[in-house]
């Protein structure tokens, strides 16, 4: 059954007609052409599809677009500033070589930002546990963990500077 939904995606209000069964990830990729959010599995386990809905990280392959009606969604495309300046977590992934093929990276970055926001102090163990829902087939995670620790610190620094 078709329904009209209105939500905020990366700061812009969008209204679209979707089928009840349309997944949020399909809506983002196919209707809005925001293909930075990836699909890496059909078992809700890989985390390539992670986006923020009302500020918390969720798997967009395991949520219906209609469930996001009225919500604010942020995807990897919504992180960098208008002038192209990367979000501190994105910058940290580049700086610390936290990626190889890059397929898992959008989901990793979105999960990592939520992790940093909900944990005032992060340890290596907390990062490894916090990224339980994100699978990387390339890196062996070592540089991802370094990047997340550095990105979290940069985010905290920016928050302090803003106060």
């Amino acid at each position, binding site marked *: *059954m078709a*329904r009209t939904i209105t939500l905020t995606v990366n700061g812009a209000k969008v209204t679209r007609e979707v*089928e*009840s*069964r349309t*997944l949020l990830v399909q809506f983002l990729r196919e209707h809005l052409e925001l293909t930075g959010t990836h699909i890496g599995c*059909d*078992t*809700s*386990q890989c*985390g390539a599809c*992670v986006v923020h809905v009302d500020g*918390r*990280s*969720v*798997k967009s*392959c*395991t*949520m*219906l677009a*209609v*469930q996001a*009606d009225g919500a604010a969604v942020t995807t990897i495309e919504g992180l960098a500033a208008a002038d192209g300046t990367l979000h501190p977590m994105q910058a940290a992934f580049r700086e610390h070589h936290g990626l190889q093929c890059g397929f898992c990276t959008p989901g990793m970055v979105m*999960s990592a930002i*939520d*992790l940093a926001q909900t944990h005032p102090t992060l340890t290596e163990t907390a990062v490894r546990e*916090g990224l*339980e*829902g*994100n699978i990387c087939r390339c890196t062996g995670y070592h540089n991802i963990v370094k990047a997340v620790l550095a990105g979290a610190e940069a985010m905290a620094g920016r928050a302090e500077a803003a106060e």
Partner: protein
Amino acid sequence: MYDFDYHRPTTIADAVALLAQAEDGRPLAGGQSLIPTLKQRLAKRSDLVDLSAITELRGIRDDGGTLVIGAMTRHAEVAASDLVRSAIPALAATAESVGDAQVRNLGTLGGSIANNDPSADYPAALVGLGATIVTDRRSIAAEDFFTGLFETALAADELVVSVRFPRPDRAAYQKFPNPASRYAVVGVFVAKTGNAVRVAVTGAGAVVFRHSAMEAALTNSFTPAALEPIETPADDFNGDIHASQDYRAHLVKVMAKRAVAALQ
């Protein structure tokens, strides 16, 4: 995914009415079990009734020493709640052990227990703590609620509204997680209240169960050593590529000993 009609009522009464009218409707909570099965066309539903806009189903409160948690409370909220962490820390730890952060951000208490996966964590906590499930029409003791493999005492149009947890003196949950999903290959919840000890086992059999031999041994002596002589029959256990029946029986003892050791 087969198509369905989607509804988002704002009251329990409207949700129950929608379910009663639907040809083959189901409540939609966090969707972390329901959506994967629909996606893979393992199930087909005429209607999904999204419970997320029903405020009565949310929240955590203390009711004269009993902890009351609404059905739509997310695992992440239970894990982070100061009230749960101080009243029943083992329950917060159980919620924290579920899946991964993204599953915990959407998955709910009501959805987990209504789904009653044989490897789910909450059923062990509810049976171990002697919790009571409150529905839109009655109250059900946890032991009577979980009836079989993915089966509960709920009627098709019945909603879990909240769960009431009495406070134990001490409790601990230990699980051997599947390395991919984090579901319990075996999980054991141990609770002690006065002299009464309850031991609930998930993951091992078709449905959560109380381990009466372990309960008797621990009532006598609340030590890991008291569990040493107890053998758990493996005949009715799950055996699969993750763990054989005998290995699961072995894990029951190991997890129970760890839980008791954590409470020394």
